[in-house]
């Protein structure tokens, strides 16, 4: 049994906006084991991206990390709390220990610099290389590793000269340039076409195997979850609804939200006569419903759901849910 590389405890990220405090992530706990692919799945505004950014305190004002711990296992096996590190140490962790890939590869690359320059500066600022020449050589190697066609040419290209899929390959290559141990991929394929999406997912899978990476995937697509993940955390409106191994989540979804979500997603391999939509809309997090945040849309809502927030309960092995239906009273 591998050890966790990241342990998140009661993480809270609040945005102090004009309209009041938005509790984008409100008391979320989970752990990511070394070498696994862990997915955070949820809809727009559920706090999945914010959670992933909070791991390295990549939160800009008006956002603030309001509480909790993020324990990261460093190379010597000790756990350090990321949220207590100073800015310089954090900077060194970002990109070197924990790398990010974002949704829109076209926006993530600075249009005014070549692909090669992105590699060079990333490695330079972490002291991985000594000269620009070495940087270019490493960049070409990395681009080859991410299966970029004609890498020698591509290092000299500007981002706009690359297609969407190539840009995402470049972004992945840049992310890997300092040999990180945890790769956080925030919706890495939602801007890409189906055929390219499959290529990128395949690439991520291969890189993970080859390099022994731990992968944290953020996605809204249940299909991507099923294809890629070992374990899944389902977020709803800043709360963790359910967490467990991927098979159990799909076979035996416990939370009414997970159940409803799976029924609302069309399956392309099956002929479906009727989808069952979830009634209502995602709540506004500036004034979320009290108690369980899903209760206004939940078919099983009870009185207690409206008053008290449910605790996480382990219903079967490694499969936990936050729902009053499973509480022993």
């Amino acid at each position, binding site marked *: 049994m591998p050890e966790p590389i990241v342990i998140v405890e009661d993480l809270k990220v609040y945005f102090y906006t004009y309209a009041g405090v938005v509790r984008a992530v409100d008391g979320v706990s989970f752990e990511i084991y070394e070498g696994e692919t862990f997915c955070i799945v949820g*809809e*727009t505004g559920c706090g999945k991206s914010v959670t992933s950014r909070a791991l390295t305190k990549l939160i800009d004002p008006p956002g603030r990390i309001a509480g909790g711990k993020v324990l990261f296992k460093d190379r010597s096996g000790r756990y350090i709390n990321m949220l207590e590190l100073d800015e310089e140490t954090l900077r060194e962790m970002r990109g070197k220990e924990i790398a990010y890939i974002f949704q829109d590869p076209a926006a993530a690359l600075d249009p005014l610099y070549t692909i090669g320059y992105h590699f060079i500066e990333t490695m330079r600022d972490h002291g991985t290389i000594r000269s620009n020449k070495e940087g270019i050589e490493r960049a070409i190697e990395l681009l080859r590793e991410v299966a970029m*066609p004609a890498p020698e040419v591509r290092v000299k290209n500007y981002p706009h000269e690359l*297609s*969407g*899929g*190539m840009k995402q390959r470049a972004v992945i290559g840049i992310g890997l340039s300092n040999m990180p141990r945890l790769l956080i991929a925030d919706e890495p394929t939602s801007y890409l*076409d*189906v*055929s*390219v*999406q*499959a*290529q990128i*997912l*395949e690439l991520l899978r291969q890189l993970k195997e080859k390099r022994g990476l731990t992968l944290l995937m953020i996605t*809204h*697509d*249940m*299909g*991507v*979850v*099923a*294809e890629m*993940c070992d374990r899944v955390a389902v977020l709803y409106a800043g709360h963790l609804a359910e967490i467990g191994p*991927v*098979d159990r989540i*799909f076979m035996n979804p416990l939370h009414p939200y997970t159940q*409803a*979500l*799976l029924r*609302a*997603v*069309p*399956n*392309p*391999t099956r*002929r*479906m006569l*009727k*989808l*069952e*939509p*979830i*009634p209502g*809309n*995602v709540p506004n997090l500036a004034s979320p419903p009290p108690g369980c945040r899903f209760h206004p849309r939940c078919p099983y809502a009870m009185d207690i759901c409206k008053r008290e927030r449910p605790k996480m309960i382990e219903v079967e092995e490694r499969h936990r849910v936050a729902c009053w239906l499973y509480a022993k009273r």
Partner: protein
Amino acid sequence: MPALIQVENLKKYFPVGGKLLVKQWVKAVDGVSFEIYEGETLGLVGESGCGKSTTARLLLRLEEPTDGKVLFEGKNIYKLRGRELKEFRRKANIVFQDPYTSLDPRMTVFDIIMEPIRVHKIDVGDPEQYVLKLLYEVGLNESHMYRYPHEFSGGQRQRIAIARVLALRPKFIVLDEPTSALDVSVQAQILNLLKDLQKKYNLTYLFISHNLAVVRYMSHRIAVMYLGKIVEIGDAEEIFESPLHPYTRALISLIPVPDPFQARKRKKLMIQGEPPNPINPPPGCRFHPRCPFAKDRCKKEEPKLIEYSKGHYVACWLYS
């Protein structure tokens, strides 16, 4: 069954780059023919830049074509003038992808839904009653009537857009990726609403999407587009159960399936690279550089769309 819409060899080229000197053309739609029957949903799938949205706009004459014609109820829509054109605009309409910019932010829901009525000067009796009826029909209510679009969520806005189109009691609606900007939990609501409305009013849909799962759920027949051309068209179930064109086969095998067991078992037909630039499409079959089955012939000659089995057409040298 009579075809409500017949598209014949439709082409749309856009000029690019050098204004005065060399003219290059983006061949967004390059000779497309198909028909849509009354009361059915034709799904149009393809990756970004394949020309599906341009096709949609051409079908509603929101763009003038470079060549070809579209017959709506037997009449070429590009020849319509004056009252006939207005009548066509009443019968055929569109719901757009982005519900955030498709509603004028300066108008109330009431004004938005009444606008088509005013434009076409239709007598609907009490306007408030009429709008209210439409609001109920799309799952909204009287409390929404005098609000502004920015107060609504994406799904609700899409409902308003649907109500606006329904106001004219159209026959044909183009649905241009109507749910791709929405969350999955809301997507199903809108899809079901569209299905119910179709049944109730015998609407004909052209449903455009890049999401094959949604297309399968919505469509009776499906057309697959690649780089401005239709490569396969046929009954929805047949396309999904026994796809012919290598591109269709790849697409279907590559969609992530929301089922981990199935995902592990499934065999994937990977295709390399990305769709090439529609300015300089490859010669011969446009898919050949990415096709795992490409032969010499594919590089030189362009395959025609042939009827492989009844109602199932494919443009590929493997089947001729």
